[in-house]
């Protein structure tokens, strides 16, 4: 299943803003990303699947979009 991954903010120092990956659920997707981008390890990231932010593991379908949202601190 081909999943579109979008990254934001400081994560762009580590990876491209748009990325395609094969994964069947969010946990598998994160495992693959961590292998490819070790700089993601230990970072606090909120995950949104098709526009819905969730901490649960979610099964992914072909063409789903997963957004990786880091915290911003500036004001």
């Amino acid at each position, binding site marked *: 299943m081909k999943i579109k991954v979008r990254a934001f*903010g*400081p994560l762009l120092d580590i990876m491209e803003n748009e990325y395609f990956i094969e994964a069947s659920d969010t946990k598998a997707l994160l495992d693959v990303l961590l292998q490819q981008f070790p700089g993601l390890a230990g970072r*606090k990231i909120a995950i949104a699947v098709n*526009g819905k*932010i969730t*901490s649960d593991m979610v099964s992914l379908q072909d063409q789903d979009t997963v957004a990786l949202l880091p*915290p*911003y*601190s*500036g004001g």
Partner: protein
Amino acid sequence: MQWDSRYERHYTLPGFGPVAQGKLAASRVLVVGAGGLGCPVLQYLTASGVGRIGVLDFDTIQLSNLQRQTIYPTASVGQLKTKVAAEQLRLNNPSIEIIEHPVRLSKSNAVEILPQYDIIVDCTDNFAIRYVLNDCCVILQKPLIFAAIYQYEGQVAIFNVPDGQGIACNYRDLFPEIPDANEAPNCSENGVLGVLPGIIGLIQATEVIKLITGLGDPLVNKLMIWNVLNYQSMILEITHRADFHIPDIESLDIKQDVNGDQGHGGDIDTIHPTEIEVYLLDPKVCLLDVRESYEEPKFPLAHRGIPLSILPKRVDELTAMHIIVVCQRGQRSVHAALYLKEYFGKKRRISHLEGGIVHYLNYKKAE
């Protein structure tokens, strides 16, 4: 409600009108942080006629702030942000009330300050204060209009406002644990396009107005991401975490907080309750109670009362050469003393009573 030509464009706006204007006038909004986000929020809420606006910030104005913090004149560099912002805002709209809170937000002063307002706006620039503010707003059930920026992008959300299903999310639903500061360097470390906080701050101000007036579809339990380079924006739905532990009221332990703040107030001259009466024999000494007028117990020794919230407005009434500040537990008095020290410089001696009135009365009882 009295007709005020200042708001004519609101009165004639379909869907808004004098009723919505009246709601703004009856509202009390606290803006935490008077920096890049805080300036536009303050300026537009003031112009819009929000009845009472609190400005909370402990910092002074730096030259490098002026590229985006447009409320401050160049000549104000070095002065307290709350003081200068309040002066400018009063000039802009003298018919509303502007309250200065020249303090660093902590759990203990949040418990005192937040209840004075209906809506809180998070314009802070670091994770430590963001999490204190978030947790206090959860406990006190205060609507929190959150925003944060990074280089060319901003995030905005509304927390602690129940949606149609009665669910209210907060910042810990996004990020349960406080991130390391290096996960998202702030503007001073990583730069920011000057107009970005202007745009994101105005979205925050818009959400405040929508929430007060019931207009449109506010970002309740939604996170908006807005990018200035390509004008792409996204609105994401936030899910409440079932495993989220709402901090209980015990976590607002004041003693813990006083310890946390020792470094900040460490250079303030401290007077012990056993010494206070001796000091007061000197006519050059003035005892200043900075609690609100309704707070109990009343202080049994001769004193002046000017609440911390309006101290900057009335500071010139203080003529004594040595001012000893007191409050309930010796927490607000540190903040007030820091402010007075900054205001008077070396011309006056500024002290505070250790442990506040509570400590003094305990000592008298034991005596």
